[in-house]
């Protein structure tokens, strides 16, 4: 595979197959109806961006996809979310197993206060993905390479993960999420705590990652959504207002609310 411009080529192998399909998803936090009737199909091997003003429900929806909302008291999720056609809220689905398949990267880089090696090895270890030390070494190296941070840390894998710079920490967190070989990568504003140079590196990495994963990212920056994503979903007041090709959303939105938002009138 050669590097291609993400805006032009969207038809790579497997791209376009529906990975996640959500139907009529409702989320309540206590009495607050945070997400109303969200239905969306998310394609594999693509970057899908969720945009919208603060409190619009985009992060809430993202956290439904790996059942992180389960850990919040008083949060209720209704509706139907399927990963490869399989209901992820079915009683027989173990959220622990699901989260290994649907990795997550958070807004603030949050490496464990352990060595770089142990950070990446943690997921494979708890899920028993490596039979021995050399296999684990291999997974760690591969993940760090795919996280585009191997060259910077290969000589100091024993250094604490917290000793890295912000951008490096975030790439380490991405490598850590990749290490369990997930199918989907969820990113919750992965660049909002980073400087422009680190942001550019992460964006480049995300573009690289979509060859192997279904990447879904929440972002506050419309420029970022336009640069990185192939599909964009616009959320407003708990509703999915518009969803489609990124180019089309930004140049020719069909809903007036989308237009107001991307032209800066609401948000």
């Amino acid at each position, binding site marked *: 595979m050669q590097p291609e411009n993400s805006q032009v080529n969207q038809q790579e192998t497997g791209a376009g197959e529906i990975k996640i399909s959500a139907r009529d998803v409702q989320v309540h936090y206590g009495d607050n109806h945070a997400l109303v009737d969200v239905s969306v199909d998310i394609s594999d091997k693509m970057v899908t961006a969720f945009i919208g003003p603060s409190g619009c429900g985009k992060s809430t929806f993202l956290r439904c996809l790996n059942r992180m909302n389960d850990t919040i008291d008083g949060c209720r999720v209704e509706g139907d979310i399927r990963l490869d056609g399989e209901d992820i809220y079915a009683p027989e689905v173990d959220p622990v197993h699901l989260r290994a398949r649907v990795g997550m990267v958070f807004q603030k880089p949050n490496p464990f*206060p352990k060595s770089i090696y142990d950070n990446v090895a*943690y997921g494979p270890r708890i899920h028993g993905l490596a039979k021995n030390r050399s296999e684990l070494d291999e997974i760690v190296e591969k993940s760090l390479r795919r996280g585009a941070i191997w060259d910077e840390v290969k000589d100091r894998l024993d250094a604490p993960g917290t000793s890295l710079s912000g951008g490096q920490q975030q790439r380490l967190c991405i490598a850590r999420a990749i290490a369990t070989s997930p199918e989907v990568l969820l990113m919750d504003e992965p660049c909002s705590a980073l400087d422009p140079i680190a942001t550019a590196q992460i964006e480049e990495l995300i573009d690289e990652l979509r060859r192997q994963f279904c990447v879904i990212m929440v972002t506050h920056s419309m420029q970022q959504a336009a640069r990185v994503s192939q599909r964009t979903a616009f959320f407003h007041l708990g509703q999915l207002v518009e969803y489609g090709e990124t180019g089309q959303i930004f140049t020719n939105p069909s809903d007036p609310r989308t237009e107001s938002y991307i032209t800066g009138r609401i948000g």
Partner: protein
Amino acid sequence: MKDSPASAPRVNWKDPQLAATLRARHARERRLKILGLLSLGAAFAMLFILLASLAASGYKAFVQTHVTMDFVISARNVNPENPEKGKYRKVIAESLQAVFPEVGRKEMRQLRKILSNGAQYMVRDAVVADPSLIGGVLRLTVPVSDPYDQLNKGEIDRTTPESNRRLSDREIAWFDRLKEAGMISTPFNKALFLNADSRFPELAGLKGALWGSFYALLVCFLLSFPLGIGAAIWLEEFAPKNRFTDIIEVNINNLAAVPSVVFGLLALAVFLGWFNLPRSAAFVGGMTLALMTLPTIIIATRAALKAVPPSIREAALGLGASRQQVVFGHVLPLAMPGILTGTIIGLAQALGETAPLLLIGMNAFITSAPESAFEPATALPTQIFIWADSPERGFAARTSAAILVLLGFLITMNLAAVILRRKFERKW
């Protein structure tokens, strides 16, 4: 020049009224600072007075007047077949007679009191350990009895009339003769740490109390540490938020504020009354102290668990760690410094606790150190309580000395807490 209507009117900072407000603000700040420094100074002064008065009255208990004498061990007094049953009082009397040949039989009763009552047992122990001494002479350094110790330390004023003095002129003259002969020495008071309690101040020591406190704290730690951490983890990480857990929470906070004597009464009723556990035992003392330490540890642990940033939990959960893996693999290790600090402070509190131990009888008069947690024992604070209650002059200084020892342990424990926190503190 007229201001244009669009520009806001400019504030004149030179206006005397505004300047006065500013001055008043600065003055208020200065007053607060001075008040703060004053209260800090007062606190330090109190601490200094406390330590100085303890040191002033206690330092003398760290040395003890001894007399070095030749004891004649004749076979007439000590049967070589059975050295343990020898007439050691007679040995002492005869040896003193050798030093003071002019003293008659009647006065001998008085003279013998120069030496501590324990001297005869020390001679006996030396002879039992080495029976070849029988028929020879044993040179031994033994403590003098309390009044003479006080005399040597200058606590007895020689100018007060004889009738108001604890020692008569003749007794003082005897002691001075010993001193002139170079037989008196005042070495470090090892007995203070190596002996258990005694009726005689010169023989009394803290060994029993130290062991009692050690066993009680050990039991207290073994019970309250795992129970406290377990309860805190459940409440903080697993418990649902409902009325029931609210009630538990409120009651744990209340429990931390319950006066310790109430826990003592509870222990008396339950441990001694119902379960018939041994009276005065460090084991029961430890269980009682654990009741008090438990809420402290639970509260400290919960605070430490809460202080672990949620991003760490999310990171682990997001990788597919189970709740239990998140808690034991990430949250607990990060909270450990805080938990250990809280535990050590709780234990330090327990070490100084007196009232509950009095109620379960750990203030008994026990002259041997406990061999296990189930034997009758005293603890440091109850030992201080007993000594403070004793009439002999020598116990006054020993009370202060024991308080200094207790404070020493408390400071060491608090220091350990600080060092542990420094060592394990992590940044994220």
